[in-house]
């Protein structure tokens, strides 16, 4: 396809005649456009000239493009990049060689180009581009600088997975962009190219992992009568092991009921784990609750009633957090930009919507934490700390 396609004389004549007729029409007059009237002949004569000019222009434009020029005009394209035609080389081969040269040097360093190139790499899931942001923590705009903030996979229900990309994986991304490794991380492997534009010095590009800001979430809900909380209140843990929890006072009525016990968010996403109490034995001062499962760690803090919708609500909150993206610069510059589908701010309204999506939640009575919408700092992402749901 050419950037300019010459029209034949009939097409040009028809276009000119139509334009002339329209101008007369606008003045309230119908123009006689029949052949061989004066308007027809005037436009037909002009069309002959214009058709020749367009054909000539089409050829000239083709010769301006290295992938379309031919003969000696193609040879001229090789002078500036100093890529001369090899002896006996045919036009198509020479065109391809010139294109290769230009493709290597015409990398534009645009945010879309950076993002697409970085995401070709096998070591990250996605990346966000901050064009003009100076490498470092100052978040200063400097022309010619770019920061790529890379993310790994979303955690889902696995606390071992975070959005964070390891330093070795980041090094692979960097090596790929600098042209020492291919996308699979093989040094000088097939497909290794220098993807950094020549105008971007090494130090102007920073590839870094996402930083996260943990946010504790506590939601108070009213359960539907079909999905009631199994018991009410909460009790501070006096002592615990990974199979027992000791609380003050006589609470033998907890036997057979589920509790939420905090085993730590590094072991279990959100921290609180729902577990069944098998026996509750009051010893005169404290009650020892024996748990149906061996927990990942001895719980600490306070136990709460585990509602029937705990797992569904947890999943909904995880989905909400996993859709969050890193914060934009003060003057928006991030690519892709912040949109409803790529949000950065943790909104209380969104938490409420997620909680209500769990079957059995009648209404959200309050959200003690966070007390307000949480906006991340530049390049940082809000991630889930402790997640707790209590009865209103």
């Amino acid at each position, binding site marked *: 396809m050419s950037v300019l396609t010459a029209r034949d004389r009939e097409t040009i004549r028809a276009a000119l005649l139509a334009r002339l007729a329209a101008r*007369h029409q606008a003045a309230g*007059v*119908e*123009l*006689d456009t*029949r*052949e*061989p*009237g*004066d*308007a027809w*002949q005037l436009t*037909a*004569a002009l069309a*002959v000239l214009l058709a020749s000019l367009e054909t000539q222009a089409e050829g000239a434009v083709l010769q301006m493009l290295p992938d379309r020029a031919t003969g000696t005009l193609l040879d001229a394209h090789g002078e500036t990049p100093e890529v001369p035609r090899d002896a006996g080389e045919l036009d198509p081969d020479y065109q391809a060689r010139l294109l290769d040269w230009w493709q290597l040097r015409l990398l534009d360093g645009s945010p879309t180009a950076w993002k697409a190139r970085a995401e070709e790499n096998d070591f990250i899931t996605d990346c966000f581009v901050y064009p003009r942001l100076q490498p470092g923590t100052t978040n200063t705009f400097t022309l010619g600088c770019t920061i790529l903030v890379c993310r790994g996979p979303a955690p889902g229900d696995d606390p071992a997975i975070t959005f964070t990309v390891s330093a070795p994986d980041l090094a692979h991304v960097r090596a790929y962009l600098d042209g020492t490794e291919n996308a699979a991380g093989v040094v000088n492997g097939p497909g290794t190219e220098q993807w950094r534009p020549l105008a971007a010095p090494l130090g102007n590009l920073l590839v870094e992992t996402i930083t996260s800001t943990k946010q504790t979430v506590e939601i108070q809900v009213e359960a539907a009568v079909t999905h009631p909380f199994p018991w009410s209140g909460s009790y501070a843990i006096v002592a615990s092991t990974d199979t027992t929890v000791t609380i003050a006072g006589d609470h033998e009525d907890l036997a057979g009921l589920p509790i939420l016990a905090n085993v730590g968010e590094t072991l279990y996403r959100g921290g609180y784990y729902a577990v069944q109490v098998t026996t509750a034995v009051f010893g005169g001062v404290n009650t020892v609750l024996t748990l149906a499962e061996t927990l990942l760690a001895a719980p600490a803090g306070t136990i709460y009633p585990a509602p029937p919708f705990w797992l569904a609500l947890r999943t909904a909150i995880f989905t909400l957090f996993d859709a969050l993206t890193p914060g934009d610069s003060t003057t928006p510059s991030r690519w892709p930009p912040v949109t409803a589908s790529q949000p950065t701010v943790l909104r209380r309204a969104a938490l409420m919507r997620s909680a209500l999506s769990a079957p059995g939640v009648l209404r959200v009575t309050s959200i003690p934490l966070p007390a307000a919408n949480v906006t991340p700092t530049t390049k940082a992402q809000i991630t889930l700390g402790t997640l707790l749901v209590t009865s209103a």
Partner: protein
Amino acid sequence: MAYAYARKLDPQTGDWTYSAATTFAQADSPALELVKRILRTLRGSSLLDPQMGVDWQKVDPLGTQAQATTESVLRAALDPLVRRGAIADLVFRVEVDSRAGRVLYEVDFTDVRARQRRTASGSA
């Protein structure tokens, strides 16, 4: 007022005629202008359309068939206009001036859009 705008040709010289306001004069019958243009063109002389015009090469004013041949070449020249529906009901009158070696002709036709009879005349 004609149904469409067309510039008026001087039937004697073939030049544009001008109105008092120094603009091109408007033709009363656009179809007549088409006819005039064809009748004034020698077939083969228009580079845009070599088939346009009257094939006067076929007419020998001194020959016995001058009258019939003249009518024939005139009809052939105007046939495209008839086929396109611009004019209809052609009536030819041809006089042969053997002494001067020329033919005089008159064509009556209907301007189809205007629904009027018009006449074009000339000599060759």
